[in-house]
């Protein structure tokens, strides 16, 4: 699914965010990407989201080299992904259902289809009773569930999550992880960047550790 070969990413003044990182993630895997702040986790996710391209090396997802994608192909590629961020990235002026429906709307689905699909995933994450609420009316855990629903709404083959439990207490964090495990059980590849060692221990899945931009450990 994801093939990362000798990927390096440098920013100005030659500072390496990632250096010579090679890793492989198979379809249907659930993988933690861990390491301290500045280890390169978010950089790798930005490369996978195709917000940036590697300075050297190759990064392929589903057989496509992300550096070779044209702007239109980048849009199409992103439509095949789901992403979840620590700060939820919800639109505060939109209701829960509208936040989730933004993806099918972008895909050109009709209003009816958008709402039906958004309601299905909101029901799946247990928020069917909050569809008309605005994000600021929800708890942190509920907001992250909305973000997960949005990530799921287009049936992605790959979900990228950047510190999805960073703003949640441990119990809610485990709830969210269980939700991601359920998603993974349905065949979706899940890559979660987190520095929460306790959570990784409790979930007990494959873990790739980065340190100072290098691949430090794989368990």
């Amino acid at each position: 699914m994801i093939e990362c070969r000798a990927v390096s990413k440098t920013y100005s003044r030659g500072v390496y965010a990632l250096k010579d990182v090679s890793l492989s993630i198979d379809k249907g895997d659930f993988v933690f990407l861990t390491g301290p702040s500045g280890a390169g986790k978010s950089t790798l996710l930005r490369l996978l989201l195709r917000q940036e391209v590697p300075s050297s090396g190759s990064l392929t997802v589903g057989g496509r080299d992300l550096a070779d994608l044209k702007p239109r192909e980048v849009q199409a590629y992103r439509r095949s992904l789901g992403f979840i961020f620590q700060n939820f990235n919800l639109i505060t002026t939109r209701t829960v259902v509208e936040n989730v429906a933004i993806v099918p709307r972008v895909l050109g689905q009709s209003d009816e289809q958008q709402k039906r699909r958004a309601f299905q995933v909101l029901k799946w994450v247990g928020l069917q009773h909050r569809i008309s609420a605005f994000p600021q009316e929800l708890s942190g855990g509920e907001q992250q569930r909305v973000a997960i629903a949005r990530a799921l709404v287009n049936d992605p083959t790959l979900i990228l999550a950047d510190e999805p439990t960073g703003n949640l207490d441990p119990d809610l964090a485990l709830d969210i992880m269980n939700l991601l495990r359920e998603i993974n059980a349905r065949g979706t590849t899940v890559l979660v960047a987190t520095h929460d060692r306790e959570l990784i221990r409790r979930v007990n899945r494959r873990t790739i550790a980065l340190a100072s931009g290098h691949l430090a450990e794989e368990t």
Partner: protein
Amino acid sequence: MALAGYAWREGSMSLWRGRRAAAVAIAAIASVVFVAGAFLVLSFNARRIVRSWSASAEMSVYLADDAPPAAVQELDRWIQQSGMAESVVYVSRDEAFRRFQRDFPGLADVAGNPSDHPLPASLEVLLRPTAASGPVFDAWIDDLRRRPGVIDLRYDLEWLSRLQRLVRTIEVTGFAIVGILGLAAALTVASVVRLAAASRSDEIDIMRLVGAPLSTIRAPFIVEGLLQGVIGAAIALLLLAIGAWIVQLRYGAWIAEVTGLDGVSFLPPLAALSVIAGGLVLGGIGGFVASRGAARP
């Protein structure tokens, strides 16, 4: 179709949310379109006056007393066949004398008596308004002056031609001013739509991340600009119509007396539509400029 519906919904909602800032852009567009529309109304009415006066423009071709009837007939036929005249009427010396006495009774003694007066026979030519100007007409006049039997010409077209040129100059100047104001209005719209875009930057970022096509991101901003344009133009048109109505009410009789027209006319439907289209173009340009900035990664 789905994109159009989405852009319409999002654009109108964004316009409503930012209605205070949008009011500035709408006012700017309304001002520009009002000035442009006012020039159009002025130019339209000035052209009506020129057309009306040109339509009744006459030329008198004075004939020599000894001009043989055959030469006069030949001259009459030559004028009619030239394509410059609507009609040609022969006025004999006797008829000229009668008219003079009728039109200037106080000066009847000056003209002398019916058998001995200085008034020449003439051909009264009603000129075609479309043909009665330009170098071809000038050449024709020169030719006419040299025709056998012609002693003089009197026509009032030269000042009408000057009036036409003046109207054209006013139009060109007016639309140059409108062009500059239009640029300023488009920039105002772009700034207002950019403000709306900045307030929705989180949404735009998310749309980019979920792979929204550029058209999906940009279209609502263009629609927002178009809406501002059409609302501004509609307001300007309404103000112009009210202005024209007030002028007609207060000065209609005076205008009719001076110009010979039935008062001030508002813009014909096609011109009014073009005013709306002008507003749409201004708003669209502003929205497009803003959308390019908003959709830039």
